[in-house]
């Protein structure tokens, strides 16, 4: 029981002040109703016991309800009032049902007040509070005003219709001694006043709540405005960054495609110059190959200009494109290149494919140009959702790796994909790139 009480108390405390006051208003009015009906009940019994019913009735303008009926009717109608109030506050109601609930509330309010001989009109405020609680500004204003007018009119009309004679409550208090009567009248007024105070407090809180909400919305608006401004700045910056990146990319692209082809051509031509005297036939063949490379390079440049995408990659799947590129490179540079595929991701994004293609391309170019290697191994391996690309050559390597344009670009590309690049220079040069490729990787045997 104690736990229940504390639970209720904590639940009560968790609610907003307006809701708490609204509930308090209900509780208070319920208590007052019980008090009044109890007063009528007790006094009626006392009057009958004291055998002064005749003189009591003589002072009354209307037939009073029997004590038991006062109790039953007032409590019952208060119950109906409460239930209608609850129904009225439900969110999932049609407009018709809500109006019906409101009507029920109004009628129950009148019956309850009538059962107490209109001695206590605080219930009107309760209904008005209920209306205010649900007040959302949309055509409820008229309804509110109408309901209030009807209630107060009925209350006043009823008391006016007595015309002469004493108000029943006064007739009831008249039974008591003067001193007691004074206390009773004071208590009655006090009860009404407390109700009015509670109601006013509730209204103030309600207005305050609305005000606070308005302020909150205003501050939210301001926040939104500043966020928007920042977003605009970011957007401008991002545009600039994108522009820069695109420029870099273009530079990379030119370097990668033209550089690669021209390096190949230069190397091939060097060979031709040697061969041309020794074996003109062989030189001729070599020159034909060089022409093909030049043509290919030209195509690459065109494509770069057009779409900035490797032609091989455009025509073929990545794996075929790499195989083709490796084969072609080996043929043009007379470098022995071996391609090992130990694992291959099932599906990759286009940009990832492009990066992989470029890394292999750059790696081989570097091996030839800087390392002067004769053999190179390109190895693909899958490890826990990462694709590891190792390009190992037997070239000179270097004591200190000074990242040139190619290496730097490679790193930049990998960074964009959250990958990494590592270089080792022992017995040649080893380049290791790791690219996350996500799910769907599968193991594959050696090629």
């Amino acid at each position: 029981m104690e736990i229940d009480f504390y639970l209720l108390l904590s639940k009560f405390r968790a609610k907003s002040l307006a809701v708490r006051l609204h509930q308090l208003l209900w509780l208070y009015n319920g208590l007052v109703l019980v008090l009044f009906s109890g007063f009528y009940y007790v006094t009626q019994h006392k009057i009958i016991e004291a055998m002064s019913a005749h003189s009591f009735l003589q002072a009354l303008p209307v037939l009073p309800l029997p004590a038991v009926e006062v109790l039953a009717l007032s409590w019952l109608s208060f119950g109906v009032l409460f239930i209608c109030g609850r129904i009225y506050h439900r969110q999932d109601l049609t407009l018709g049902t809500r109006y019906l609930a409101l009507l029920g509330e109004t009628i129950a309010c009148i019956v309850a007040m009538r059962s107490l001989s209109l001695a206590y009109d605080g219930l009107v405020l309760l209904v008005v509070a209920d209306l205010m609680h649900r007040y959302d500004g949309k055509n409820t204003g008229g309804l509110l005003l109408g309901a209030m007018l009807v209630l107060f009119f009925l209350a006043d009309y009823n008391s006016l219709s007595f015309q002469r004679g004493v108000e029943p409550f006064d007739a009831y208090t008249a039974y008591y001694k003067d001193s007691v009567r004074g206390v009773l009248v004071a208590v009655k007024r006090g009860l009404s006043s407390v109700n009015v105070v509670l109601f006013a407090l509730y209204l103030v809180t309600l207005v305050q709540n609305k005000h606070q909400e308005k302020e909150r919305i205003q501050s939210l608006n301001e926040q939104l405005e500043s966020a928007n401004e920042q977003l605009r700045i970011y957007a401008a910056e991002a545009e600039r960054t994108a522009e820069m990146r695109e420029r870099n990319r273009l530079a990379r692209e030119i370097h990668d495609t033209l550089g690669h082809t021209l390096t190949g051509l230069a190397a091939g031509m060097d060979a031709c110059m040697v061969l041309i005297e020794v074996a003109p036939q062989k030189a001729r063949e070599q020159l034909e190959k060089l022409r093909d490379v030049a043509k290919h390079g030209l195509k690459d440049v065109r494509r770069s200009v057009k779409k900035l995408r490797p032609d091989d990659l455009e025509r073929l799947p990545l794996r075929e494109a790499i195989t083709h590129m490796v084969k072609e490179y080996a043929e043009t540079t007379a470098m022995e290149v071996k391609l090992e595929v130990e694992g291959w991701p099932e599906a990759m994004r286009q940009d990832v494919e492009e990066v992989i293609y470029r890394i292999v391309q750059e790696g081989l170019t570097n091996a030839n140009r800087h390392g002067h290697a004769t053999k190179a191994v390109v190895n693909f391996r899958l490890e826990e959702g990462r694709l590891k690309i190792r390009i190992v050559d037997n070239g000179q390597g270097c004591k200190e790796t000074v990242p040139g344009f190619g290496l730097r670009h490679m790193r930049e590309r990998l960074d964009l994909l959250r990958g990494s690049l590592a270089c080792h220079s022992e017995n040649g040069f080893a380049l290791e790139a790791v690219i996350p490729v996500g799910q769907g990787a599968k193991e594959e045997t050696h090629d």
Partner: protein
Amino acid sequence: MMGRKQMGGHLLALCLLAVLGLWSWQAGHARTQLRVGTFVGSAWGVPNSEGHAVLEKAIESFEAEHPDVDVTYVSGIRYEEYPEWLAEQILAGTEPDVFLVPEYDFEAYAAMGAVRNLSDLTARDQGFDEAGFYAAALAYGRKDGSLYALPVECAPTLMFVNKTLLKREGIEMPGDDWTWQDFYNICAKVTKDGDGDGVLDQFGMYDYDWQLAVTTNGGGLFNASTRTSYFASPHVEQGVQFVMQLRKLQHGHEVTAREADQGKVAFRPFTFAQYRTYKPYPWRIKKFAGSEWDCVRLPAGPNGRNISPVSTLLLGMSSRTTETGLAWQLMKKITIDPEVQGAVLEKSQGLPVRREVVLKAARDKWGWGGAESVDLEAISRIMDEAVCQPQFRDQRAVITMAENAIQEIYAGKKPLSMGLHKLQKEVNAYLQR
């Protein structure tokens, strides 16, 4: 949580159904109960030994016609206690379905709705014959033009004449059209000191008061609808003046009831109930030793006629009764049924309120056994002309006020006209408060 709520709701519905079922089962099986509120003793302050004889007769007849109805009443409530008893029942909401309405409480109970408005019942009931009632008696049951109660019995006020005394003085019995002047003349003639001891020992009247004088001088005292009084009007002034003149004949002697009973008074107003009670044997012997009494109409004032005020016992229906139809049948049984109304004449002190019943008794030469007979036809004619003086909530208080003021006028402490004007002002202020 929801489950518990739902279960609670179902349980409640089940309980309600059970209660409703029980209630309807009971209603279907139980015999209908009809309760009547009544008292023992007489409404007119005369001894009555017959108890609830008239009601018993009505119930017997009613239950014979409605075998599934039980009519009950609480017996033994005395007339003096009845208004309080009824008020308690009304306050507690347990008043009988049909009850006698105390004359002075009628207006209040009708106004507050404790007594049911019978207009719809009389309008629907083709067999209800309003004209069969004496108009004045029925008028007591009306308020603002609507009928709220039916008369059960009534008692007109008549003038008792000491035939023995008049015969001794050689004066003729006054006729039905006698006037204040005749009345005064006889009083003046009979007031004397018979034994010559210097003290008056024979008087003209006892208990004839200003209210009777005003009534027979063609006017009422109140307008109930506007809640004003007419104390300063000429017919009231004439009435009070007339009583003053009569009193002057007695040289300040207040005639006592004992002197009247001893036959030393020529005239005394009596209600029919008193007449009926004291006329037959053995009361006559006990009360008026050696004098022959008879009754005539009240003397007419200069602006009035020989009419009588009448007082009526009313029967009303509770506005909260569930058996309106049966209650209405029972009310008609008590107030209209010739047998029951006949029993009023036999067993009670009042006069039946149905003209035909009185006239039939007159044709049958009804009397109180033996030689004593009564001219019921004449009384019926008096009833036809009698006036209704509607009672209202503050009437008794106001009459007390008036009585005090007029006593002061009698005593010469206040001049007549001014005193009445002042009284009217005070009474009006009281009624309008």
